[in-house]
């Protein structure tokens, strides 16, 4: 149904103001102390101007680092539960990169496919994604190796691509996108055959993801996991900056007889992630945790959910304190 329109770059500010006055929360990349983070904005001038990728993804909007699931009160042999407070107002996230928008297919598969998670569903249903295509990339980007591309429309409701003359080519992709564009028809004019491809970054294909996925089941006992992960220090940075990592931990926080149940991000990089109450840990050492990370994204998820759990955004490699570079590692695996 993709409808192509033109929006003036300068109109982004009007769009944000209009969305805000309509009661929506608007998130966009903001520069903050050397980081680029998705924050609530009131105007386009608050948006970061020049960056390849945001420090953290927009995952926090739909899958917050910690979110309330319910509240409870305990009494003499009783527990009474109440629902978490009402959902925040609808959100529009502007400036999501096509790789990140693509990651929604992974998050949706995990949270909606076999069991529809009400908390997540209420957030994703309430969120509209305005992607912005990539005009540049860096050495950590590899979206084209994992079925994406710098102008990929998958996952975005509207995708903006900066074209000539200070204009955005606006591809209106979904019903949600159409509803948003229809709410500000004066900002969109008809497109006239703009050449989108010439405005996109050139991201070279670096490996054959299908070959990697086909190969991994036979590599479970390989030495490669040990050699690659010797320098891994076992923090959760890669998982937490990843737009497609979805694992969580549940924490009850109590104050007297009242409590709150929270869902928090968790990471397979931590030893405690698989630690059993008995003291047994099926993933005792870091190489097993590293293997899980790669297997989950490139073997188990393609097998079980028909999605590759990595979108090639490169954040884990950029953020890793010890240079665990996923692109290099996957290429090594492919070459084995």
């Amino acid at each position, binding site marked *: 149904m993709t409808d192509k329109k033109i929006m003036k770059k300068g109109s982004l500010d009007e769009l944000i103001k209009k969305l805000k006055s309509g009661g929506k929360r608007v998130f966009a990349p903001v520069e903050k102390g050397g980081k680029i*983070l998705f924050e609530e904005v009131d105007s386009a001038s608050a948006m970061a101007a020049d960056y390849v990728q945001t*420090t953290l993804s927009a995952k926090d909007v739909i899958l917050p680092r910690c979110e309330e699931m319910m509240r409870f009160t305990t009494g003499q042999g009783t527990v009474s539960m109440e629902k978490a407070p009402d959902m925040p107002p609808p959100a529009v996230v502007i400036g999501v990169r096509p790789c990140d928008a693509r990651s929604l297919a992974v998050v949706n598969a995990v949270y909606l496919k076999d069991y529809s998670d009400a908390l997540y569903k209420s957030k994703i249903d309430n969120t509209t994604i305005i992607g912005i295509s990539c005009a540049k990339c860096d050495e950590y980007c590899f979206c084209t190796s994992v079925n994406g591309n710098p102008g990929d429309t998958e996952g975005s409701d509207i995708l903006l691509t900066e074209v000539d003359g200070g204009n955005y080519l606006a591809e209106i992709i979904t019903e949600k996108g159409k509803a948003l564009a229809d709410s500000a028809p004066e900002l969109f004019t008809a497109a006239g055959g703009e050449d989108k491809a010439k405005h996109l970054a050139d991201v070279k294909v670096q490996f054959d993801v299908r070959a990697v996925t086909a190969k991994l089941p036979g590599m479970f006992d390989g030495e490669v996991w040990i050699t690659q992960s*010797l320098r891994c220090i076992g923090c959760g*940075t890669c998982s937490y900056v990843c737009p497609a990592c979805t694992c969580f931990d549940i924490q009850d*926080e109590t104050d007297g007889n009242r409590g709150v149940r929270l869902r928090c*991000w968790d990471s397979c990089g931590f030893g405690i992630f698989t630690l059993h109450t008995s003291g047994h840990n099926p993933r005792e050492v*870091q190489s097993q945790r590293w293997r899980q990370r790669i297997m989950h994204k490139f073997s188990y998820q393609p097998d079980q959910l028909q999605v590759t759990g990595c979108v090639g955004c490169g954040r884990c490699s950029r953020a890793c304190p010890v240079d665990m*570079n996923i692109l290099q590692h996957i290429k090594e695996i492919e070459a084995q």
Partner: protein
Amino acid sequence: MQDKIRQKARELLSSGAVKVVIGYGEGTGSRVRALFIQKPEDADRLIMDERCVQNLAVYLTKHEVRAIGKPAIVARMHVIRSINQLTYEEQFNEGDIAVIGISDSNEIVDLPDLKSIKEYAAGNPLVLTAEEKADLGKLETMTREERWNYWIEELSNCIKCYACRASCPMCYCPRCTVEVNQPQWISVPAHEIGNVEWHIMRAMHLAGRCVNCGECTRACPVKIPLRLLNQRIIADIAVNFGQSEEYALAAFNPNDKEDFIR
């Protein structure tokens, strides 16, 4: 310098004195990464330049690295200090590790045993640089409220990835306080109180132990200036405890001037 490190590593591996040499090598792009050299012929991959700043001592307590066998470690001053502190905390016995010491003036230092490491560390005490003191000074000029707001703002970015803990050679506890949940001493979620509790707890556990390598700040994906918390404590300890060998949190003196502790 680099050649001398390679030569030393080759000797240690060829003679069978060590099974692995932990050092620096080229990473991806212009990055440097830790290398674990296990064959003499691979020693030429070791490098030494201004990019080699990671505190490699973190690997000395890592299970899989120890499983290889006796390590030698390329140790600049912050690594030497870390080894000294870990020795004080009884993490090494004599002969457990070999050290290829590198002085601040980029000379190889011969550190054949733990005693020589202790002496070398004592001869090169940790002092904050003028720049570090100036950064602390800026914090001092703030009012309590301003300082509190500064930290709440910085810590609001924390995602609890624990890269600060994982990158720190002094954070080797098999079970961190934040993982003790009967009772749950430290709040786990990455919300305001959880983040504040975590970073204050960690700073207190590093009191008198932190070697000011800056690894926590470098590792942090959201660039929280964690070094400032630790440097504040280093400065306080220098004033209140001097260069005492005991570390402040564990020190007990029956004649302590504070009543509550007696």
